């Protein structure tokens, strides 16, 4: 055997991504252009973000919707519509089905939601025969959150899909978050399982699940991470709290991943940080065969652009 075998293998051989704008650099370095199908591309924010991604040579784009309307939006925004493939579609449901069909068949690599409601869009994604679900996989959402007050990116789950994850869903969510963090170059992410306190109480079902999850990681049933919980947010992300409280935790106030107990706790967390603390989020649906970009219709062009770059990284 050669000495090479003993070298630690990085998660991937590029530098670590420490801010959302760096995702683009990493994708460009991978030197593979992805094709994005946009379902019902009828809003300026989406087309603007797609335009930027095409211009920056991240993607090729297929815009699905009423051709005339898409062309009108492009003209109004001073965007050259000839750089996109435009596929005519009569309504938002049929546009969603077409975007999913194209991606499933391999004509495109990534699906993006345009000006269609999440329910109609997800119905197309989740269709058992024509959709993009990995069989029996948990459908969830992982976001990469950039906060000026924190020294690195935080991967959070799940602010969008599963209201009250059970134990199996939590395990799957952790797996997705670890996978994403590793793509960003964090080889062994520190995962904090968030609660209101670090104590285990049989009256708090999440603290029960978290304790079980920790033991699963102890026994190698969850890999490639350092994990602890229940932890409150301070113990997860603030070293000072660790020494004050005297809690021994391997996450040590330096979390990369935060698993939240519910959608209703995770969602206000990231929105609060975006509103009041200059936070920025890029996120993706997980559990699908191909990346699916699902964002609120009201998200900014910048956020949508980060999501497109992220989907290319995860493709």
């Amino acid at each position, binding site marked *: 055997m050669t000495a090479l075998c003993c070298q630690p293998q990085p998660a991937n051989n590029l530098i670590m991504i420490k801010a959302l704008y760096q995702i683009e650099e990493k994708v460009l370095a991978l030197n593979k252009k992805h094709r994005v199908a946009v379902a019902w591309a009828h809003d300026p924010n989406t087309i603007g973000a797609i335009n930027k991604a095409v211009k920056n040579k991240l993607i090729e784009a297929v815009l699905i919707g009423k051709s005339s309307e898409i062309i009108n939006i492009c003209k109004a925004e001073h965007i050259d519509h000839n750089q996109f493939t435009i596929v005519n579609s009569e309504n938002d449901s049929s546009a969603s089905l077409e975007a999913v069909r194209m991606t499933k068949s391999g004509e495109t690599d990534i699906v993006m939601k345009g000006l269609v409601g999440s329910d109609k869009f997800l119905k197309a994604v989740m269709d058992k025969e024509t959709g993009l679900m990995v069989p029996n996989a948990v459908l969830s959402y992982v976001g990469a959150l950039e906060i000026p007050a924190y020294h690195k990116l935080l991967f959070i789950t799940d602010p969008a899909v599963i209201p009250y994850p059970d*134990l*199996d869903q939590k395990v799957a969510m952790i797996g997705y978050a670890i996978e994403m963090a590793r793509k960003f170059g964090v080889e062994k992410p520190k995962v904090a399982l968030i609660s209101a306190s*670090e*104590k*285990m109480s*049989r009256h708090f079902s999440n603290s*029960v699940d*978290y*304790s*079980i999850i*920790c*033991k*699963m990681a*102890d*026994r*190698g*049933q969850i890999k490639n991470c350092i994990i602890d919980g229940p932890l409150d947010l301070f113990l997860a992300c603030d070293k000072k709290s660790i020494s004050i409280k005297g*809690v*021994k935790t391997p996450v040590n106030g330096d979390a990369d991943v935060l698993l939240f107990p519910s959608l209703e706790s995770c969602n206000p967390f990231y929105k609060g940080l975006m509103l009041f603390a200059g936070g920025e989020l890029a996120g993706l649906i997980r559990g699908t065969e191909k990346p699916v970009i699902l964002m609120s219709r009201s998200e900014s062009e910048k956020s949508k652009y980060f999501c497109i770059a992220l989907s290319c990284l995860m493709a």
Partner: protein
Amino acid sequence: MVLKNLNDLKQIVEGRSRKKLVLAAAQDQHSLGAVVKAWKENIIEPILIGDKEGIQNICALNNYDITGLRIIHEPDTEMAVEMAVRMVSSKQADILMKGMVGSSILLKCVLNKEWGLRTGHLLSHFALFEVETYHKVIAVTDVAMNISPNLKDKIAILNNSVDCLNKLGYKMPKVAVLGAVEMVNENMEATLHAALLSKMNQRDQIRNCIIDGPLAFDNAVSLESAQHKGIRSEVAGDTDLLLMPDIEVGNVLYKSLVFFAKAKVASIILGALVPIVLTSRSDSEQAKFDSIMLSAAACK
């Protein structure tokens, strides 16, 4: 300190003032034999309550010299037990021992709300085994008292046992929470309880011990087997205390250790005001003697 064999219990007791042991319904040959022996070896100061004539006959028949031993005559079994329990709750005795009486009658008295030995803790059974094939004694709980303990019960059982081991000189006993496998399996409640108890220990919610589990029996007592499976654990292979998932597993393990591995065993009931020697009427004199030593060592 770690006990290599049951005889090491004697060292704990030596040098302490002798504890008063009250034997309830004392007219029982094995119990008397063990009590007299422990008295002669300065381990305890016995008080016998029961049918005086019966006691004297048994002692004469077996050449037990009881000259100078305090005997209280009470021929009625239930009255004898009540009197013994009252002696303990009024601090006239330090240890309660069951003689020729059913466990249920004795426990009913122990749990009496007015003059019993309640502390608010769950009563649990604690057994110490000396097995030739293990490098030290191993404690096992609960093999005889709690049938199907839930998580709350297991915490109480652990606290009782850890407290007892601390008194025996173990500063941080290593506790293995037993399962059929070392992996967490949602369909096996014992493995889930084990994970929760481990976490509570990490968070100082269960103190003065190191808990790991689930561990399968082989992982708990054999380092080689744990290493073979790649288990990283402070406890594996060096367990001081095994927590059983339920009474069926515990009782079968207890009996297989005794019958197949020729283990020596000492056992007491914990969680009451004082240690209770509640060996089965069919237990050997040796087992009763060792249990008396354990009860004396486990006194405050």
